[in-house]
């Protein structure tokens, strides 16, 4: 997982992250995503929003603590935009 620079779209954690953000954070479904660490990219902003909402360190990256939370079972009520 390259910490700096583009992350390939087909990386398995990308699918999980995108699905999680679509389901619980109102992330627009058909956004073409490059998980490049550009602070302005929509996906980075959504990751930051999720991290802030859940009291995680706000990095904008799919770091291990963020992925851990995404893998955990949770309430189905969306945190944003329900």
């Amino acid at each position, binding site marked *: 997982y390259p910490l700096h620079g583009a992350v390939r779209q087909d990386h398995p954690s990308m699918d999980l992250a995108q699905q999680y953000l679509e*389901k619980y954070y109102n992330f*627009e479904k058909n956004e073409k995503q490059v998980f490049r660490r550009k602070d302005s990219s929509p996906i980075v902003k959504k990751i930051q929003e999720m991290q802030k909402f859940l009291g995680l360190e706000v990095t904008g990256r799919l770091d291990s603590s963020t992925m851990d939370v995404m893998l955990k*079972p949770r*309430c189905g*009520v969306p945190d944003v935009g329900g």
Partner: protein
Amino acid sequence: FTTFPGSPKWRETNLTYRIVNYTPDLPKESVDSAIEKALKVWEEVTPLTFSRRSEGEADIMISFAAGEHGDFYPFDGPGQSLAHAYPPGPGFYGDVHFDDDEKWTLGPSGTNLFLVAAHELGHSLGLFHSDKKEALMYPVYRLSTSPAQFQLSQDDIDGIQSLYGPHPSSDATVVPMSSVSPRPETPAKCDPALSFDAVSTLRGELLFFKDRYFWRISRWNPEPEVNLISAFWPSLPSHLDAAYEAHSRDSVFIFKGNQFWAVRGNEVQAGYPKALHTLGFPPTVKKIDAAVSDKEKKTTYFFVEDKYWRFDEKRRLMDKGFPRLIKDDFPGIEPQIDAVLQAFGFFYFFHGSSQFEFDPNARTVTHTLKSNSWLLC
């Protein structure tokens, strides 16, 4: 803690619940006792009481279901979403659904029904999610103690008591709760002179904007619900000019002066407000009067005084050959339109306290109504 937009809460304190069906994972008695314990958690810190119904409609209908089960939020197999619930209100509001693809248990293994039920019932009573990890209303499932030792966090207590006040027997000074009556300055929905600032659809609902408020009507809750605009979209202004839904983008565009915002559900999108001219309007246009988007054609009409523009939602560009005169293409519709709504294949033009139903095929006004006809007056 947070509450749902508009802070919906139950007006009654004696609420009813019904366990509609059962999971095969547990004996019925175990499900009953887990639900009773979960209700007791909230009963102990509020004036609320819960009585069980065995048939018919109850305030809180509790059921188990898997996958698609008749609402907007299908379940997703084992893991991920465990359950969900709706805020206080009529019909399916207040109801709790458990994902029956989970392995429901009363202990630490699998998914503890008591803990999830207590969280979801918090939603049924009006609490949204908390960002405090120790709170019951934190969205991520975490069984930290055995159910017997479970205690609400102070955050949960503060949240629910912000809606209902403390339990009568507690020594906390009881602040008399004003009966929830419409705010005095809420516009009277049946005033014959009522006019609207803007009207739009939103995910199957109808929104009627007026001053700082909007009425919300849906097929599943025909009684119009009035809310402050700021309760749902804190960064939006009031006294709007126009609004329309671009269905293909699940977005509502809201206009005031020479700016417009985009919202998705109750989330204002980043990068807004934008300037009107970014849509292709000439600099002479300082504000618009009304807007409506044709769902099938993915074409939006912007009305400004006696003219209108046509906008292609697919290309996100203004069509050539505009503006055109409203009276040329919408015979019978006078300028200075307040709002436009598309429904049942008609365009409904709102002009002061009057409303004109326009058949776009026959290109004629087919009915004249009062503007507030939609609010069941």
